[in-house]
């Protein structure tokens, strides 16, 4: 069984179906990968503006919106200067074979 247990109470990055990136502490999950994130923030990447974070507090992410959940190396993360990173928005996961 591929469980999310090792990620519990860890800082994680969550990718959603519409291409957004959420960061937060994983407080809980269930079988359908519904997630509870605390001290969550959304990180917005843009090709012409520096990366910015928007604070969202405690939130639930519905399972069907989740693409991936990853833990990360905090040292590497903290030493990354996101104000100098420009990137295209990720595509969503819906019907992207059509376009």
């Amino acid at each position, binding site marked *: 069984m591929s469980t999310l247990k090792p990620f519990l109470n860890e800082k994680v*990055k969550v990718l959603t179906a519409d291409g957004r990136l959420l960061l937060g502490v994983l407080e809980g999950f269930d079988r359908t990968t519904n997630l509870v994130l605390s001290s969550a923030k959304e990180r917005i990447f843009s090709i012409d503006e520096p990366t910015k974070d928007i604070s969202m507090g405690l939130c639930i992410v519905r399972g069907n919106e989740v*693409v*991936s959940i*990853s833990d990360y190396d905090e040292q590497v993360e903290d030493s990354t200067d996101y104000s100098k990173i420009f990137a295209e928005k990720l*595509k969503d*996961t819906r019907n992207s074979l059509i376009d």
Partner: protein
Amino acid sequence: MLFFSFFKTLVDQELKNDVKITGTLRSIDQYLNIKLDNVQTDVAKYPHFVAVRSVFIRGSTIRYIHLNPNSVDTNLLQDASRREAMASSGDKIVGR
């Protein structure tokens, strides 16, 4: 699970959002949810994955899993599939 025991190696994934992720298969479940270790992605293109160590991917978002044909022994796989089918059904499978 046969799939897991057989593909415990390096796999390449393509997600429905066109992101490609390579890593070592750690575990997999009945939804095809997958956990990868030693994750490698094009971080310059996708800074979303900066500093990422291991990743859990929801099965529903996976488009392809690429396997290196050289690492797949079809005879061994055939045998293993038979054995698993036999074990799960309890019936005797008549060989070729």
